C-alpha cells in the first residue's frame, strides 16, 4: 500500500544529499513507502542525449526495466534532469515502439517488458497527489508571512508533450503547495527560465549570467527564499550565489521538500541546512517556529 518506486539519481548521494534526506523523511512522516529501484543506473543527464541518442535511451530504459521487474508502475524521480530523461524514455517508447522494443530486448532477457505503462513523476506531481488533509494535519509550524519565489526551471515543466504540464509557461502548482504551508508565493518573472546548470563545469559564464538574472528577479519580487525541486538548479543558485550576487543581500535557496519539512516541524539539523552555502537562518527568522499564527 502506498508504495512508490524511487529513482534517487547520482547527485542524491553527494551534492544533493539533503534533498534525498528531506524526501525520505517526508515520505516517512506521510507513511509512504519509497522503494528504491534495485541497481538503478545514471540517467545520462544532459550529456548522453547530446552526443549519443542510443545511449541516452538505453541508460534511462535500463532503470525503467528494473523498476518494471520489481513490480513498480510509478517511479518518483526527484531530480528534474533525471525526471526528464526517464519521462522522455517512456514518451519515446510510446512514439517509437520499434526502437524501444529493440533496445528493451537487447537490455533484458524478458521480452514482455513494456515501458509504456510506467508513470514517471516529479516531486511536484508526487506532493500534489498526496491527500491534502494528510499534509494539513501535520503542519505544526505554519510559515505565515514567508515570501517564496517558486522556481521551476526547465525540465519540471518542459516540454509539455513529455511532462504533461497544464501550463508550461506559467505553472502554478508549486505556488499552490507553498500556500498550503501558510507561506506567500510572490509574483515574479523568472520562474521557468533556464539556470544553465548543465554548463556548471563546462561553460561557467552561462551559469553566472543566468543565475544573476534569476537572483535579481527574486530580489526585486521581495522574496525571502527561493524554493525549487532540482539538485542542478540548487547547486547553481545556492553554491554560486556568492559569485553572481556578490555584495547583494543573499537569498536562501531551499528544496520544496525542505520547506515542507520546516512546516511539519523537522529540525534544521534533520534538514541539513548546514550543508547550504547561503545561510538559511533568515528563513527561520522570517517564519519563526511557533511564531505568528494570525497570518
Amino acid at each position: 500500500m502506498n508504495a512508490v518506486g524511487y529513482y534517487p539519481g547520482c547527485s542524491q548521494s553527494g551534492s544533493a544529499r539533503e534533498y534525498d534526506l528531506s524526501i525520505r523523511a517526508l515520505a516517512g512522516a506521510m507513511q509512504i513507502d519509497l522503494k528504491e529501484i534495485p541497481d538503478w543506473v545514471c540517467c545520462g543527464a544532459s550529456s548522453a542525449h547530446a552526443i549519443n541518442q542510443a545511449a541516452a535511451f538505453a541508460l534511462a530504459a535500463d532503470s525503467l526495466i528494473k523498476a518494471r521487474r520489481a513490480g513498480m508502475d510509478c517511479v518518483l524521480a526527484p531530480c528534474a534532469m533525471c525526471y526528464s530523461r526517464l519521462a522522455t524514455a517512456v514518451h519515446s517508447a510510446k512514439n517509437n515502439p520499434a526502437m524501444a522494443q529493440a533496445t528493451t530486448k537487447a537490455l533484458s532477457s524478458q521480452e514482455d517488458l513494456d515501458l509504456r505503462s510506467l508513470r514517471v513523476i516529479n516531486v511536484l506531481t508526487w506532493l500534489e497527489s498526496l491527500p491534502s488533509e494528510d499534509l494539513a494535519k501535520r503542519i505544526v509550524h505554519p510559515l505565515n508571512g514567508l515570501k517564496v519565489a517558486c522556481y521551476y526551471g526547465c525540465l519540471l515543466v518542459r516540454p509539455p508533450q513529455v511532462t504533461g504540464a497544464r501550463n508550461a509557461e506559467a505553472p502554478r502548482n508549486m505556488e499552490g503547495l507553498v500556500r498550503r504551508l501558510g507561506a506567500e508565493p510572490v509574483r515574479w518573472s523568472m520562474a521557468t527560465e533556464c539556470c544553465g546548470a548543465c554548463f556548471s563545469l563546462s561553460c561557467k559564464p552561462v551559469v553566472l549570467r543566468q543565475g544573476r538574472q534569476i537572483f535579481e528577479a527574486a530580489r526585486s519580487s521581495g522574496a525571502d527564499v527561493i524554493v525549487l525541486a532540482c539538485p542542478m538548479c540548487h547547486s547553481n543558485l545556492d553554491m554560486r550565489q556568492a559569485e553572481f550576487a556578490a555584495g547583494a543581500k543573499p537569498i536562501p535557496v531551499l528544496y520544496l521538500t525542505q520547506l515542507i519539512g520546516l512546516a511539519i516541524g523537522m529540525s534544521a539539523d534533520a534538514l541539513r541546512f548546514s550543508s547550504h552555502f547561503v545561510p538559511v537562518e533568515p528563513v527561520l527568522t522570517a517564519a519563526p517556529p511557533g511564531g505568528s499564527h494570525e497570518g
Partner: protein
Amino acid sequence: MSVAHPTSSPTTLADLVAQSTGTCVLNCYQCGRCAAGCPQNVPGFMDISPTRIMHLLQLEDTFSNDPPRAAEYARQALTSSTCWLCAGCQACTTRCPQGVDIAGVMDVLRQQALALGLAAADRRSEDIQKFHATFLAAALKHGRIHELDLVLRYKLASGHWLEDATVGWQMLRRGKLSLSRPATVDTSKIQAALRQMGAGPDGGIEEAKT
C-alpha cells in the same frame, strides 16, 4: 529483418532531423519565436540563432538537387557553435507554433557534427564536448556518477585545473562532495546492447575526436 540505419546511406541532415524528431524542417515558417526565447542566443554565445539553423536546414532540403550547395548549408549548421551552447532547456520546442522540436534538432546536429568530424572547435564548444564525453563515458563505465571523480576527469580533459577550486573546497567542507565512490552498477548489458545496435559503447566519440 534488419532495420535501415541512417548511417547506412547518405542522408541529408534534414532527413535525419525528420527521422529523429518526427517533424519536417519545412514546417518552420521562420517566425523567430525559438530564437527570441533562447537563453543562449545572446551576443558572445551561440554564433547562429536557432531560427537561422532551421533556415539552413530548409535550404539544404530545398537545394537537394544541387548537392554541393546543399552540403554547404549543412556544413554551416554542423560547424556552428549553436548546438554545443544549447542548454537543452526546451523553451524553443515548447513555444514553436509549428510543432518543430528544435531542442531535438540540436541533438541531431551535435551527434552528426561529431560523427562527421565537423564539430565546432572554438574553446567553449570544445570544453562542452569534452564534458559530455567525460560524463557519458563515466556513466557507461560505472553505472553511476561519482561527482568528485567526474570533476577531476573533466579537469584532466579540459586543463581547467584552477577553476572553482574554492567552491570545490567548500563543497568538501559542507559534505557535498563524497571522497569515495558511492556505488557502481554493472553496465555490461547496456554496453553490449549499444554494440549490438551499432551505436558503440561510447557512441563513436573517441573515434570521432581522433
